[in-house]
């Protein structure tokens, strides 16, 4: 473990994205202190203003502080996304390991089941589920988790299938490891870095799915601020007040990019064979000079 910590501390790229990601997570958590105004309070004297001392990023069509809504919006959006990914990754990894490691009938059963879930278009499935269960935060999370574990399951299964052939699994068996230990100490640590990339990419995808659901009124309920919903609300005013879609859009993009890059550099750190070569930096410098 200390090996990775040392390596991480020495990697400026990772440290940069790590700090940025921490800030992005802290902003919604510290929202009550950071936000200048109440995100759901209407100020009918100041509708759709672009900028004022009281409202740094202006107000929306019903006079709510836009900056405060952006800050509070992270609470709903990021929370849902993180919970959905945690649940779906857990289900997917568990089923993937079972299928890949045990093989045989278990594998066939899990694989076929996964195929069935994949066959149904995800968004349609989520909309149907939420409509039946009734729109609420809990149901949205549940519905999104129920359809998005398949990718984790397939990738995990494929990786486990190839990793369990390794001699180090046999060596582990000789070292007296039980089956569970073989998986947790030898297979999972070598699966996880690959999944990390999947997870970070999923953050962006889930934020977009969520905004789609919000648009249909199936995720967060107004007036609770949520980035995707803010985006869809702002669409009506695209021409008169473009900032109403520009700002939440940029917030989503920023989050997606930073978590993606964090995942990328984390994967490099977790790969013991990957050592950043100075030549890369030199090449980059050269390239920057030329352009």
């Amino acid at each position: 473990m200390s090996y990775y910590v040392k390596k991480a501390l020495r990697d400026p790229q990772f440290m940069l994205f790590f700090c940025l990601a921490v800030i992005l997570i802290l902003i919604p958590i510290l929202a009550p202190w950071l936000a200048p105004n109440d995100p759901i309070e209407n100020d009918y004297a100041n509708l759709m203003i672009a900028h004022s001392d009281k409202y740094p990023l202006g107000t929306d069509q019903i006079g709510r502080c836009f900056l405060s809504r952006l800050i509070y919006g992270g609470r709903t959006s990021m929370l849902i996304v993180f919970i959905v990914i945690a649940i779906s990754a857990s289900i997917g990894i568990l089923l993937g390991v079972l299928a890949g490691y045990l093989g045989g009938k278990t594998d066939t059963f899990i694989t076929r089941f996964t195929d069935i879930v994949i066959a149904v278009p995800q968004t349609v499935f989520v909309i149907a589920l939420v409509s039946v269960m009734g729109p609420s935060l809990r149901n949205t999370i549940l519905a999104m988790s129920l359809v998005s574990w398949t990718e984790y399951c397939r990738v995990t299964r494929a990786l486990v299938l190839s990793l369990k052939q390794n001699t180090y699994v046999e060596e582990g068996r000789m070292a007296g490891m039980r089956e569970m230990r073989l998986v947790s100490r030898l297979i999972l640590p070598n699966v996880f870095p690959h999944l990390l990339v999947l997870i970070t990419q999923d953050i962006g995808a889930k934020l977009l799915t969520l905004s789609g659901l919000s648009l249909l009124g199936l995720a967060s309920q107004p007036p609770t601020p949520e980035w995707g919903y803010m985006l869809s609300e702002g669409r009506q005013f695209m021409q008169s007040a473009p900032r109403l879609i520009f700002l939440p859009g940029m917030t989503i993009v920023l989050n997606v990019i930073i978590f993606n890059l964090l995942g990328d550099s984390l994967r490099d750190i977790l790969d013991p064979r990957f050592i950043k070569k100075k030549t890369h930096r030199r090449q980059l410098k050269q390239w920057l000079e030329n352009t």
Partner: protein
Amino acid sequence: MEQMTDNRQPILELRHISKTFRTDDGREVRAVRDANLAVYPGESVALVGESGCGKSTVARMVTRLISPTEGEIILCGRDISKLEGKGLRDLYRDIQMVFQDPYSVFSPRMSVGTFLGEGLVHHGIMNRAQATEEAKTLLALVELPTELMDRMPHQLSGGQLQRVVVARAVSIRPKVLLLDEATSALDVSVQKQVLALLMRLRKELELTFVFIGHDLAVVRAIADRIAVMYAGMIVEELGSEDLTKARHPYTQRLLESVFSVHDRTNQKVIRVEDMSMAVNANALPGCPFRPRCPRAMDECGTACPALRELEPGHRAACPAV
């Protein structure tokens, strides 16, 4: 030596073991058939033969990474061929194996120190902290500096890795150590050092060795006794000092095919002949070597010749000798 050991109980005994693999298209491949071998405590026995003769299959059956189709494997007086679950896990306190390629034995994400402690921790001999201390002793035992504790496998050389693997294997003080081509993946100079280390450990820790190999020079250096395998059968068994007395036609061929640094005549004219095992050698009735044997007789085609004692400690499976 034989007189001394023959009076004792063998520590490891293979009784009529066979292994049949089924290919995807339903064909049966008999990788090992009716192999018999006895290994006595403190002895070093080598299993030699060309690629595909089944020697690694024997190693994997003895360590129960696979199960024999037929026969019994007796280790320390009990049959281990049908062990499962906890019994199988406990088996590895008595027997350990060193694999051919040291690079593949390590999970790329486990440090050398952790790797060395794995056996001790998972066999319940020590807790993690004690095992980490013991790992330093183990590194010293295989003549490696303790600085390597926190290194990752990719930072070590092949020779260093193989030493670490050997250290891990002997860490739980097994009785029998199987060395499956343990030095074949190493450079010649490193190979010699690792061999010297193995021989020293064998004395110090009173290990019994089963050495799988194809390099007769290496095998001669490390083994007391040699068993020659061909097409899944053990065809000759003899003391490593008596290699020149080999009687089985296959062993004789095998010896002829060895290059020598000292013998320059070999370099001028290399006798090339088809040494490859007939593809279906294992499927033939009778002696599998018959198609290539210069001394084949009619009776070789009907019955599988059994090992026959020629003199004490020397047995061959050939009716012509």
